């Protein structure tokens, strides 16, 4: 058990001038499940590989516990990693795969066998111990990869998109299994994914990265309710938050034919004539007045319906949730207004959050 600390850790790939990870500052608590999330190429996997020791650190440092592991090779960092492709050794049985690290470390055979059995019981793999990875299903292979990590009893688990090779249904069930396993073992875990639903459901805290920069860290709920910038606002949540550039008028923001009151101190922080208004689809409701929307498509999900439309007279798309029993008709025009307390305001130029 240990904390993990990134201290201005930077990685610049050879032949590139732009850092893949740019002075990452991040502290992960002991026993915490931290999810690194972001679109592909954002540096989340690179960050994880820096922590694993598979990637050089060009500047800054990485700590596991109080120990500076920056110059330490992967094998001496006391970590275990689960790979996207599982990276099981094809020529070894499941038991040998799981016990390989211990064998290299010179642990006595009887102890290896005992620890492999323990892990196999936890993961329901006991009947497959003599099989080769080739003879296993995707879900079983994934569990073997988990088992290989568990057997080592490491300080930190590193997981690099461990679910993305599973089919959708298995992914959901494995998601909860991994999360509950981690809570049970209490091992500090860093988990990389591009899927914001995985991030929301699994992490104690979520770190959102973009272009090598850490955009925001926080609990899933906090990120959802207080995104620091338009990127986090648009990335977390599905369907995504509507981000509309609206005109500033005296006393507030013009939302269609109503003026949404905004505190003067907030408006004073932005210089332009527009302000970016963020509204989640579920925070929009149909009303007499508000933003006029041309309905292009209505997706009925039973309890809810989602309206996909455009602001009247423009091509700006907007998504809103409506009552599943009384959805508007396709082709009609409706007026939408946000629920109070659920409007996010961002500076249009910088993309940063304004106000609380």
């Amino acid at each position, binding site marked *: 058990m240990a904390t993990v600390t990134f201290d201005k850790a930077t990685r610049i790939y050879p032949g590139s001038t732009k850092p893949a990870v740019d002075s990452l500052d991040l502290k992960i608590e002991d026993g915490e499940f931290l999810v690194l999330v972001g679109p592909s190429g954002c540096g989340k996997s690179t960050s994880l590989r820096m922590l694993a020791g598979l990637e050089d650190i060009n500047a800054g440092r990485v700590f596991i516990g109080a120990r500076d592991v920056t110059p330490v090779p992967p094998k001496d960092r006391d970590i275990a*990693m689960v790979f996207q*492709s599982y990276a099981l050794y094809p020529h070894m049985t499941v038991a040998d795969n799981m016990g390989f690290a211990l064998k*290299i470390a010179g642990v006595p055979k009887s102890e290896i066998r005992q620890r492999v059995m323990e892990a196999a019981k936890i993961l329901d793999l006991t009947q497959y111990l003599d099989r080769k990875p080739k003879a296993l299903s995707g879900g079983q292979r994934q569990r073997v990869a988990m088992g290989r990590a568990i057997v080592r009893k490491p300080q930190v688990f590193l997981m690099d998109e461990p679910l993305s090779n599973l089919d959708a249904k298995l992914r959901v069930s494995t998601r909860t299994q991994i999360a509950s396993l981690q809570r049970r073992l209490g091992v500090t875990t860093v988990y990389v994914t591009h899927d914001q639903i995985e991030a929301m459901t699994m992490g104690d805290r979520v770190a959102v990265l973009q272009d090598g920069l850490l955009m925001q860290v926080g609990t899933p709920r906090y990120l959802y309710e207080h995104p620091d910038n338009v990127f986090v606002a648009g990335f977390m949540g599905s369907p995504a938050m509507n981000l509309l550039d609206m005109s500033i008028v005296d006393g507030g923001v013009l939302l269609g034919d109503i003026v949404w009151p905004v505190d003067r101190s907030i408006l004073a922080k932005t210089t332009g004539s527009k302000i970016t208004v963020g509204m989640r689809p579920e925070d929009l409701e149909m009303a007499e007045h508000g933003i006029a929307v041309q309905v292009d498509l209505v997706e009925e999900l039973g309890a809810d319906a989602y309206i996909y439309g455009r602001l009247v007279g423009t091509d700006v798309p907007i998504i809103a949730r409506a009552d599943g029993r009384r959805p508007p008709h396709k082709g009609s025009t409706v007026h939408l207004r946000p629920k109070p307390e659920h409007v996010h305001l961002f500076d249009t130029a910088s993309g940063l959050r304004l106000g609380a």
Partner: protein
Amino acid sequence: MDDGALTDRPPTGPSPDSVPDPSAGSQSQLGSRSLPWSGRRRRRRRRSDPAAVPAFVLAVAVAALTLVPVIYVVLGGFTSTAQLAEDPVGMPDPWMTGNYGSVLSSARFWRQLGNSLLIALLATGLVVAVGSLAAFAVSRYVFRGRELVYTVFTLGLLFPVGVAILPLYLMLRELHLLDNPLGVAVPQAAFSIPVTIVVLRPFMAAVPNELEDAAAIDGCSGFAFFWRILLPLSRPALTTVSVLAFVTSWNAYLLPLLVLNDEQQHTLPLGTAMFSTQYTQDTARVLAFTALSMVPALVFFVLAERRIVGGLTGAVKG
């Protein structure tokens, strides 16, 4: 430059095996074009495919070309020279085992077999050890001049033994390796390195990087990864290069001829040549000796044939 007849023979092994491949290819193409029909129906369709006919005829012709001399030699060993003179293409009548018997009971044959075996095993062991390490370096590490190194190795494929034979002889004499099995085995290993690296490199390069990362985290870096992960995974390719090196060494004539002057050290190809000059008149006995001398290499090849094809075509799936 090597003696024609002897070196040509054991490589006849692959040709009959590899020739049916074109037809097999067209069959599988057909198979993939068709929906999952029943096996019987697919087979009927395959047989009537006119495109397969020329390939089939060609396959039979090549197989015949390579097999007939071998069969002739083996059958000839069961005749007497008188029979051969009377009817060179007839079946043995009566079948005589005397020629084979006398060869098999001669100490000379077994001694030469042992010499051949020793040299071939030494050469194979050396080339596998050295070649796999070299292939490991050029396949898994990125370094300046890597492609140049690889090119130099592949150029070795074009370098005939005959060209090097004189300087090689002088060098071996300096090193006091004449009349020494190592004097044959070491140069043979060197000449087998290019093909070893050419076969092994793509195989090793195909091992996924994540496997190397996993191994690094599990505690093996560098050589441990090579030894515990890469080598076991490359076993099909290792079999291929071993067989190639073994058979090449087994059939070598020129190098042993120059290096091994002591008759006690002679290998089977040298022995066969000596034997045929010694018993020029007794053709049947020469045929019997020749037939027996190629048996070990053929057996080795037949046992490993399936793995060889796998080693040339297969790669590792992570």
